[in-house]
């Protein structure tokens, strides 16, 4: 991401959070129409560089739970809490860049994003990503309440999205319904294979440890690390390129497979894995095996039609 964009995003966030989130409160009142009179502001940011994530997590949990138990009518803002989500029995800590807001007996997740809402509409891809991300936070907060024996449904399934308006850096707030994303997320978490069963398929001594030294510099031999990475087969798809830093590595590992061309192409080619094989089935250089008959017939027909059409034009 561009340093210029990051700086601008930070500036925007600072603006929204300035003076104990004064601007944010105005938005909650005026745009979301929440009856907020006064609020407590609870800063859960690290106190210093030594502030460990586990102690921050405990602090966050205590603060959020205390807020539930006291039923003060004033609102409370929690800036930068640490949350935890159970993924396959493993507790994963998340450090979301968010504000949790409690009013009455409801919690709202507030997400500050730096993409603009122009004439009431924003880039649908970015909104979708924000919704997906917020759903994780909603779920994590619910889990925390549940673990503490409190009502998880106190966390609203509508999150507050704060973005710059039009061409300005004036914020606007919109409510975003994340029920669909929550349902998908829960389904994915349920279906996930347990990490142990996946680990059993891998060599026991496999590790991606960078062997950081005291100064935090990696000391592992890059070549050796690469060898380790190649022991796990890539599940590459072109979307990886924008989402994962290993995109280029996995793409070259997947070279020659239909996967590099994308999911749709894969389906169109009848699920044949190798490009060479697909082409040879299409041109008739290769006899299809039993499972490939149907795919091969389609490929042959497509190839013949293609040749005929191109031939007629030549």
């Amino acid at each position: 991401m561009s340093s210029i964009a990051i700086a601008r995003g930070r500036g925007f966030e600072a603006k929204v959070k300035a003076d104990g989130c004064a601007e944010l409160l105005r938005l909650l009142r005026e745009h979301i129409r929440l009856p907020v009179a006064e609020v407590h502001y609870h800063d859960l940011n690290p106190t210093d560089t030594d502030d460990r994530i586990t102690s921050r997590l405990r602090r966050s949990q205590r603060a959020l739970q205390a807020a539930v138990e006291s039923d003060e009518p004033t609102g409370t803002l929690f800036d930068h809490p640490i949350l935890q989500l159970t993924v396959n029995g493993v507790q994963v800590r998340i450090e979301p860049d968010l504000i949790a807001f409690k009013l009455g007996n409801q919690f709202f997740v507030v997400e500050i994003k730096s993409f603009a809402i122009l004439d009431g509409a924003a880039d649908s891809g970015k909104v979708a990503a924000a919704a997906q991300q917020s759903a994780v936070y909603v779920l994590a907060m619910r889990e925390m309440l549940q673990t503490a024996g409190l009502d998880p449904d106190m966390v609203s399934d509508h999150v507050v999205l704060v973005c710059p308006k039009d061409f300005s850096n004036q914020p606007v707030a919109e409510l975003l319904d994340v029920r669909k994303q929550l349902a998908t997320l829960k389904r994915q978490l349920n279906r996930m294979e347990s990490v142990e069963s996946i680990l059993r398929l891998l060599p026991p001594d496999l590790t991606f440890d960078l062997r950081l030294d005291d100064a935090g510099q990696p000391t592992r031999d890059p070549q050796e690390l690469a060898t380790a990475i190649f022991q796990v087969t890539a599940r590459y798809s072109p979307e990886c390129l924008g989402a994962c830093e290993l995109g280029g590595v996995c793409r070259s590992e997947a070279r020659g497979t239909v996967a590099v061309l994308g999911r749709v192409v894969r389906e169109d080619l009848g699920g044949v894995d190798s490009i060479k094989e697909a082409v040879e089935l299409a041109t008739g250089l290769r006899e299809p095996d039993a499972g490939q008959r149907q795919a091969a017939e389609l490929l042959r027909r497509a190839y013949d039609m293609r040749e005929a059409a191109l031939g007629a034009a030549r």
Partner: protein
Amino acid sequence: MSALTSLAKALAVYSMAPQRLTVFRHLYISSTPIVIVPLTLAGETNAPLAAMVGSDRARPNLIVTRQPRERAERLNFAGRLASELLFPIETAAQRTQATSSGPNARVRVVDAPQIWVPNPAGVEFVRTLGRMTRLRQTEGPWAVPKKVRELGIWLTWFAEQAEFADTGALIAATRAVAAVWATGQSDLEDGNLAAQIAWLDPPEGMDVASAVSRAEDPQLCPPAGPATDPTFDRLFLEPALRDLATARTPAAHRAVHQRLTAMLEEQMRPTWELVWTAIGLLADVPEAPRVPKRWEQQRDRFTSFHRYVADGGRPQAKRDNAGRSAHRLAELEQRKAAFEAQRAYDDPLVIADHRLTGEAFSGQVVKVDATRRVPGLRRSVLRPLVLVATGDHIHFDVGQHVYDPARNGQQAVIESVAETEDGWRVALELQNRMGSGQTAKPGSVPALGEDVTYTSVTETFVRRRPWPAREETPWTHGGPAPDSAPAVEDAAEDWS
């Protein structure tokens, strides 16, 4: 996508060479295209940094903002872009001809302007810049020069045109290229103009694979914008902008600005060349027969919109009202269907695609009754019967209408479908395009042994009930929409 396209991609990887997806080019290409390569400042909503624009590949005009974070400078940028774009628009509008020699002749421009940007994000840039400038007032507080507002109205029009499948007004180069060639990479990677062109036109003496990896290095091939390369931002742009903000004297400011201009030019120039290469490659592909007719319609649209603007037409609203949305949606669908059909009728590869999906079949005429007549309302009518033998799978039902691309969409009704040992036999009754005589016009009925193709894809569409006029928009749809006059509120719109 389709099986044929996917196969072409696989063939491209296999042979490490691009593969044709269509036999013809279905896009009109202007002899004087206007190319815009825009760059914006990261993290902002459309803060223009620079643009390279013009119709002469050898002499691009360079516009560089003096300070991308200042509102006045953004409008200044728009003003300079207006000077570049409104001139060719006006020139095109002045050269007109009559549509026919009859009494009902209208006036139509001889040629309409055609704008090229590198990619779909470039189209978005045009749309957003249009939105930013069209609602400004030309008098009172925050007034802008008239040309800035006019630029906004035009950019908005071009961006709206770009949504139509058959458009020739504003073109994203990557999309135009991808319509004709399959490369051996995914659509996502084809979105990088440099990587796409690396397949079609690798540098002298370089093979495709090395050309592609070179194209993916932002240091060697800067991104086609409008977003700049993050590394470039960090190493060059950010320091230059800082210096620009802190320059104390006009001379210091000028020096920094020169540096900024030089580095931005370096970022845009390769993309500028690539867009022209793309235009050149596409121009070399033979044009499909129905392209001129479609371009004529585009010239009509341009002519009438120019008249609207010249008559002091109001800028487009921020958001379409119910009536206009419905109109637009209907037009989008209709033009898409017509374009799809025209492509299929013109192009053997496109029709092959429809054959694979069961929307068309090709075969040989094995029997004809060219003089067959059936009783009509008042007298008997000519309804020849044609029997076609085909190896294609037939998914058509008896009674369904199909059309013959070779006979300008002659309609036929499927009379019967029978499966045989070596394929299918389809009997068709021809319905029209045979002239008004007792017997069919020569050539209007397929001959015995002729290779024929029929498809259910058709250009003719069912016109819906006319939409209510704007004044009659029902209250359920928000009632009549107010005019979208530029408001002071818009002129004072907050910019950072």
